C-alpha cells in the first residue's frame, strides 16, 4: 500500500505518484497478458511499416524521400504518437465511460477528470510502441547519413516531443467530441488515426488539400515530415516550407489549447445533457 506523508497535506505530485503506482499494480495483476500485449503492440508498428516498404520497392522515392528517409519519417511520427497514446490513449474511449455511466463516478471525486482518465486508464502495454519508436527513430537518424549540426540535433530531439503534443491533442479533442456526440467514436477518431497515418508519410506525397489540412488545421505534418525534411535538406512543396518543422512544439501547444477548449465543451455538454 502506498504510504502517504503523515502530517503534511498531499502535494499534486504525490497524488499523481499514488495514482500511477496504483495503475501499475492494477496492470501487474495480469502480468502475462500485459507482456504479450506489449510485444504485440511493438510488432504492430513494424508490420504497419511493411505497407510503406512494399510501396517503395516499386517506386524508389515518395514525396522526394528515399526508402530510408521514409522509414525515418515513419518512426519519428510513431514515437510521438506512442508517447501520446501511452498517456492519452484512453481518452479516445471516453464514449464507453459515458455509455456505462462510469463518468459520473469519476465526476464526484475532487481530482480533474482528465488526470483521472490518464492515470486510471494508462495502458502499460502501449509501452511496446514507445520502445520500438525509441529504437527505430535513432537507428533511422544514424542510417540516413546526416551531416550533423547542433541545430539538427536539437530539432531531432524536439520533433517527437512536438509530435507527442500534437497527437495527445487529437486524442483529447476526440474524447471531448465523444462526450458531445455519443456514438461518434469512429468519427472522432478519424482525425486522430487519419492524422497519425498522414504524419507517418512524407507530406509531399499527399494530395495538396490534405497536406494543407494536416499542416494548418490538424497539424500532423509537424510531427515528422517537416522537421525531417529540414534536417535532411529536402525540398518541400510551396506553402509548406521545411523550416515550419521548427514549429512542431508551438503547433502542439496550440493544438493542446484547442483540445482543452473541446474537452471542456464536452464536459459542459455532458453535465448539460445528463449523459
Amino acid at each position: 500500500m502506498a504510504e502517504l506523508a503523515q502530517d503534511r497535506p498531499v502535494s499534486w505530485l504525490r497524488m499523481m505518484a499514488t495514482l500511477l503506482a496504483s495503475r501499475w499494480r492494477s496492470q501487474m495483476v495480469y502480468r502475462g497478458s500485459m507482456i504479450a500485449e506489449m510485444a504485440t503492440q511493438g510488432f504492430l508498428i513494424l508490420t504497419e511499416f511493411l505497407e510503406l516498404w512494399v510501396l517503395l520497392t516499386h517506386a524508389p522515392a515518395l514525396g522526394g524521400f528515399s526508402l530510408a528517409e521514409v522509414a525515418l519519417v515513419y518512426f519519428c511520427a510513431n514515437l510521438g504518437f506512442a508517447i501520446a497514446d501511452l498517456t492519452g490513449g484512453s481518452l479516445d474511449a471516453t464514449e464507453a465511460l459515458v455509455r456505462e455511466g462510469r463518468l459520473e463516478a469519476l465526476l464526484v471525486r475532487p481530482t480533474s477528470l482528465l488526470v483521472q482518465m490518464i492515470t486510471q486508464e494508462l495502458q502499460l502495454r502501449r509501452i511496446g510502441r514507445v520502445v520500438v519508436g525509441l529504437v527505430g527513430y535513432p537507428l533511422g537518424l544514424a542510417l540516413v547519413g546526416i551531416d550533423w549540426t547542433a541545430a539538427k540535433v536539437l530539432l531531432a530531439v524536439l520533433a517527437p516531443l512536438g509530435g507527442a503534443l500534437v497527437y495527445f491533442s487529437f486524442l483529447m479533442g476526440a474524447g471531448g467530441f465523444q462526450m458531445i456526440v455519443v456514438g461518434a467514436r469512429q468519427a472522432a477518431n478519424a482525425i486522430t488515426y487519419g492524422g497519425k497515418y498522414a504524419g507517418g508519410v512524407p507530406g509531399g506525397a499527399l494530395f495538396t488539400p490534405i497536406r494543407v489540412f494536416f499542416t494548418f488545421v490538424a497539424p500532423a505534418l509537424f510531427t515528422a515530415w517537416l522537421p525531417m525534411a529540414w534536417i535532411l535538406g529536402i525540398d518541400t512543396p510551396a506553402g509548406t516550407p521545411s523550416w515550419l518543422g521548427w514549429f512542431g512544439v508551438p503547433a502542439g501547444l496550440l493544438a493542446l489549447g484547442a483540445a482543452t477548449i473541446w474537452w471542456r465543451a464536452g464536459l459542459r455538454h455532458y453535465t448539460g445533457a445528463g449523459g
Partner: protein
Amino acid sequence: MASNHVVEARGLSRDYIVHEGGLVRRTRRVVPALVDLDLVITAGEAVGYLGANGSGKSTTIKMLSGILVPTRGSVRVLGHDPVPERRHLTRRIGVVFGQRSQLWWDLPLKETYPILAAMHRLPGSVWRPRWDELVAGLELEGFLDTPVRQLSLGQRMRGEVAAALLHSPELVILDEPTIGLDMISKENLRRHLDEERRTRGTTILLTTHDLGDVQRLCDRMVIIDHGKLAFDGTEAQLAELTGARRMMTIDLDTPADGLVLPRGVELIDTEADGLRLNLRFERGVSAAQVLSAVQARAEVRDLSIEEPAIEDLVRHIYRRG
C-alpha cells in the same frame, strides 16, 4: 441561505430533450424529468427520497452532486453552486451510486483508500485513523486483501460506503445503497450509517426502493412522482394524509355478543366462532378506545396491533398523483 441548510433547492427543474425519428423527419421533444422541486435539508437530517423508476430521483441527485445542470430554478449544496463549484463540493460530500463502483476493480479492497485519500489530499494523520474506524464499523477486516472484483455484492457495498465516508463528508448522498443486498448486509449498512449520523452529525440523503431503509434510517420522507413533489414529511404524517387505518386483532375467551363499536372502528370479520375479531380503526381513534369497547362485552385474552404498511401508504400517494 440559512447557515444550517445543507441542501436548498428552489423551483429546481430539469428537462431532457429527446430526439425522435430518422435523419430527415426528426422531431424534438422536451421531457420534464423534475418539475419545480422545493427542498430544504438541514444539517444532521436523514431524508429518504422515494419515487418509482423514472420519477426523477437520479436526476435530482445528479443536480445536487454537480454532474447535471438544472434547466430552471436554483440549488445550493453546502453553500456551493454544484455544477460550477463541483470539485470544491466533492471534498465536502460523499456519493454512493449503488450501481457504479468507486473502487479499484483489480486491486485488493484496502488499496482503494490510500488512492482516494491522495485525491482528497488528506495526510496520513487524518485519513488513517478515520479508515481504521470505518474498517471496524463496517466490518471490512475479513476481505481487505480480496480484489474488488471478487467481493460479494454486500462486501463491495460496504467498501463503497467506506470510500464515500473516508474524507468525513458533511453530506452523504446514497443512491440505492441496499439494492440486491441480503438482510444481514442491509442491516449492517443501515446501522453504520445511523451511527455515522448520530456521532458526527452527518446529513444523509438516501434514494431507495426499500422502505425498510427509510424506516430504519430516516426521520423524514420526500416522495416524488412523475417529477413532482408528492409528499414531504414524517411517516406518521404520511399515514395521516393517506387516511391509513390501523388493524387490531383481538382474541377473546367468549364471543362478544352485542358488541357496540365507537365511530371510526370497523369490524372486518370474525374467526374461530367469534373468538377472534379483526378490526380496522381510523387515526382519530385510540387503541385503548377500541379495546375498552370490546372489553365491555367479553374477556380479552390477547391482542395485536398492525400499523399500516408503508408500502401501501406510498402506493396511495402514487395513485393520488
